[in-house]
């Protein structure tokens, strides 16, 4: 008789203990399948209903390695289940059917099944199914680590958690290349577990400001080309940080840098783009600075990737839709909130990312931290302006979400507002980047004008590099912020159009906001409104402009100085637009400064979630602009329409300039 092996040591003896979920409405077949699988030494869970299966899979994405499902089921079509599992969980799925018709088999393949077995199933066939898991894992890793990590693929992480995780990551990768990294990072780094996205069992790594700073320092030390996860990990010398965490973070970081450079170039575009940009972009535009991001995000997909990864559910998409929706509806408010993961559902991770993103202000790193650093945001408050810039890209991810919502609202606001928004966010973002050394103001400006959303991002990129250097002078930030602001300004202008346009990049949107802050500064010139805000300060921007998306402190321009003139970042409907003048730009840090005008920028966790403020719903300042914005935004939901304050310009979004 066969000895029943202990399933626990999956690591060394994979495929023993591989966790399989078997779904079949026929009890006879199900029992048979279960027995066969057990005989193969897998760990089997069975259910006769597809809906139950989905529930089980959703509650813990890491619980299973493989799914076997019948094709004909009463409650749900097997192919549909196949699709959903592939999309949401990225697990290998094997189809099972008594019907071996070629057409059906073809259908299975096209829907993503890794295999198609005929009933009655034989044990020999089942003994080999584990290969699908390995294959996927490997494939995923390759994609995931594409950023140059040289570590050998850790196939050993066949442990359930690893497996599930990898699979999922990988799967996403396949599905959405861009997202792959983000996805991965999300999983790794999201500390936020409440959403479905919490795929990993492992505790997520949250890239705090400190951590990110170390990371950046390590990367700088090694040189960006030579920076490999392993070495970075060694240099960072942080316990409980795995190479994988670093790898994914590095990936994001790289994307961010890319985005920043694009943004810088496109600042100008942003403005223009604002209008046209898909909602997501728009958001960005408005976000000023952030807008750049958006732009980047949009077209480049860089962001998208980032964002996308977050949102499978397309939360981002939601953002996009706002075109016209205006923030009022706070359509994406879900997104905007970033904090509230709920919207995203899947995107929860995304949101988290956003959140972290928002924190640009805190420190240079902040920007960089945009990547899942939800913590950042708060930290951002610290004025790390520059850092954020770098972060933007990462932020984008998260911010994007909100952005969309904002864009919607922004759009309503009429592009006019957007500028502010865009700007604000940018500025906000920028704020962190006091260091933004590279902020090429000029670049930004230019970019802004021409920024078709994407461009703005480029502006940022230029800024981004600087981020490292961000620590430091405020002045720099100002400059930087400025450039960004330019963008922002531009973005804003363009944003309006953008908003409508970008549909796909919803994620971007969020980014933009962050940038906007910076841009706000720049925008000052451009956009009167913004300019005002910006001028004062980039600091104001620090607060993420209410753009919906949590504009992480993007611009912590002169700390605290929030753009006095600050154009109230208008949070168009949920967008946190930098409110002019609130005191200059909205206060960075949560301190209540909040933009009075703050559009309901929800400053969730430090990032400014620009929520479509419904009409000026005011965002309590306590959050710091962002939060205020956020809250304002939520409030605005009802308002829809114009911000009470001053409408768009000011929507109370508390732009939290993440300064």
């Amino acid at each position: 008789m066969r000895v029943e092996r202990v399933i626990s040591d999956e690591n060394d003896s994979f495929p023993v203990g591989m966790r399989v979920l078997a779904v079949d409405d026929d009890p006879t077949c199900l029992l048979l399948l279960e027995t066969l699988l057990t005989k193969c030494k897998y760990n089997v869970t069975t259910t006769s209903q597809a809906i139950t299966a989905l529930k089980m899979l959703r509650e813990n994405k890491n619980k299973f390695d493989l799914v076997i499902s019948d094709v004909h089921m009463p409650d749900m079509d097997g192919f549909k289940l196949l699709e959903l599992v592939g999309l949401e969980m990225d697990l290998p799925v094997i189809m099972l059917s008594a019907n071996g018709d070629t057409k059906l088999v073809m259908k299975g393949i096209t829907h993503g099944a890794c295999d198609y077995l005929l009933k009655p199933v034989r044990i020999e066939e089942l003994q080999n199914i584990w290969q699908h898991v390995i294959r996927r894992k490997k494939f995923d890793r390759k994609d995931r680590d594409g950023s140059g990590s040289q570590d050998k693929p850790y196939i050993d992480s066949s442990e359930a958690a690893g497996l599930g995780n990898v699979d999922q990551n990988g799967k996403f990768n396949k599905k959405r290349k861009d997202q792959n990294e983000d996805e991965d990072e999300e999983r790794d780094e999201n500390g936020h577990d409440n959403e479905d996205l919490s795929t990993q069992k492992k505790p997520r790594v949250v890239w705090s400001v400190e951590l990110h700073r170390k990371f950046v320092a390590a990367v700088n030390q090694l040189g960006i080309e030579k920076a490999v996860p392993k070495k970075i990990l060694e240099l960072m010398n942080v316990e409980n940080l795995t190479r994988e965490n670093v790898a994914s973070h590095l990936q994001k970081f790289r994307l961010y840098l890319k985005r920043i450079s694009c943004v810088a170039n496109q600042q100008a575009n942003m403005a223009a783009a604002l209008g046209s940009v898909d909602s997501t972009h728009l958001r960005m535009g408005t976000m000023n600075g952030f807008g750049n991001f958006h732009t980047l995000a949009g077209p480049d997909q860089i962001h998208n990737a980032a964002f996308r990864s977050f949102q499978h559910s397309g939360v981002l998409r939601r953002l996009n839709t706002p075109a016209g929706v205006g923030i009022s509806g706070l359509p994406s408010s879900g997104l905007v909130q970033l904090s509230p993961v709920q919207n995203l559902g899947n995107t929860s991770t995304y949101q988290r990312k956003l959140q972290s993103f928002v924190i640009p202000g805190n420190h240079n790193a902040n920007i960089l931290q945009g990547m899942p650093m939800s913590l950042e945001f708060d930290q951002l408050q610290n004025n790390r302006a520059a850092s954020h810039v770098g972060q933007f890209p990462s932020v984008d991810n998260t911010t994007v979400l909100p952005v969309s919502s904002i864009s919607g609202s922004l759009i309503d606001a009429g592009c006019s507002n957007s500028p502010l928004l865009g700007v604000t966010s940018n500025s906000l973002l920028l704020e962190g980047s006091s260091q933004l050394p590279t902020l090429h103001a000029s670049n930004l400006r230019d970019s802004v004008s021409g920024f078709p959303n994407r461009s703005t991002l480029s502006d940022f990129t230029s800024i981004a590099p600087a981020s490292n250097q961000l620590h430091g002078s405020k002045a720099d930030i100002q400059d930087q912020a400025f450039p960004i602001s330019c963008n922002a300004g531009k973005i804003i202008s363009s944003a309006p159009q953008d908003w409508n346009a970008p549909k796909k990049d919803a994620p971007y949107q969020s980014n933009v906001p962050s940038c906007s802050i910076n841009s706000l500064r720049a925008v000052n010139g451009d956009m009167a409104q913004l300019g005002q805000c910006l001028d004062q300060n980039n600091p104001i921007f620090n607060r993420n402009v209410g753009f919906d998306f949590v504009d992480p402190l993007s611009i912590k321009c002169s700390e605290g100085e929030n753009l006095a003139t600050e154009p109230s970042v208008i949070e168009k409907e949920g967008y946190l637009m930098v409110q002019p003048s609130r005191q200059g730009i909205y206060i960075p840090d949560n301190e209540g400064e909040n933009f009075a005008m703050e559009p309901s920028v929800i400053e969730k966790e430090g990032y400014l979630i620009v929520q479509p403020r419904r009409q000026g719903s005011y965002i309590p300042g306590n959050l710091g602009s962002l939060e205020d914005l956020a809250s304002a935004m939520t409030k605005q939901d009802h308002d829809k329409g114009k911000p009470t304050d001053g409408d768009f310009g000011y929507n109370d979004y508390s732009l939290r300039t993440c300064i």
Partner: protein
Amino acid sequence: MERNPMRRQLAIMRQSLFDQGHVDEQFVQLEELQDDANPNFVEEVVTLYYRDSARIILNIEQALERKPFDFRKLDAYMHQFKGSSSSIGAKKVKAESTLFREYCKSGNGEGCMRSFQQLKKEYATLRKKLGAYFQLARQAGPVETASRPK
């Protein structure tokens, strides 16, 4: 080899199931899955099959009473029935269900009815034979030698 007479009888019975085409290779697979940890596996599965298939047969019967025939539905039922029948290795029953499905696809109501009747007969025969088989198997006792009756 000397065997308990009961076991010998059991073996003969089993062989005839195969020879007469009531069960096929799949049945052997079931038997192979039976072990000490799962001593009555085959019977368990078959019992489950009875329950489930009885339900489906009833559905088909009811569907056949409604005129005109809903071939799509009939086909769906039969597909299900075929799936479980093949899982336990019920050869003749499975063959008959394939025939039934073909009649459904061609919209041959008459053919369906006839085929269904035949199927029910085969199904009944299978149940009888398997029933006797399992009963004897239980009497023959576990694999460990049953003590010879004195």
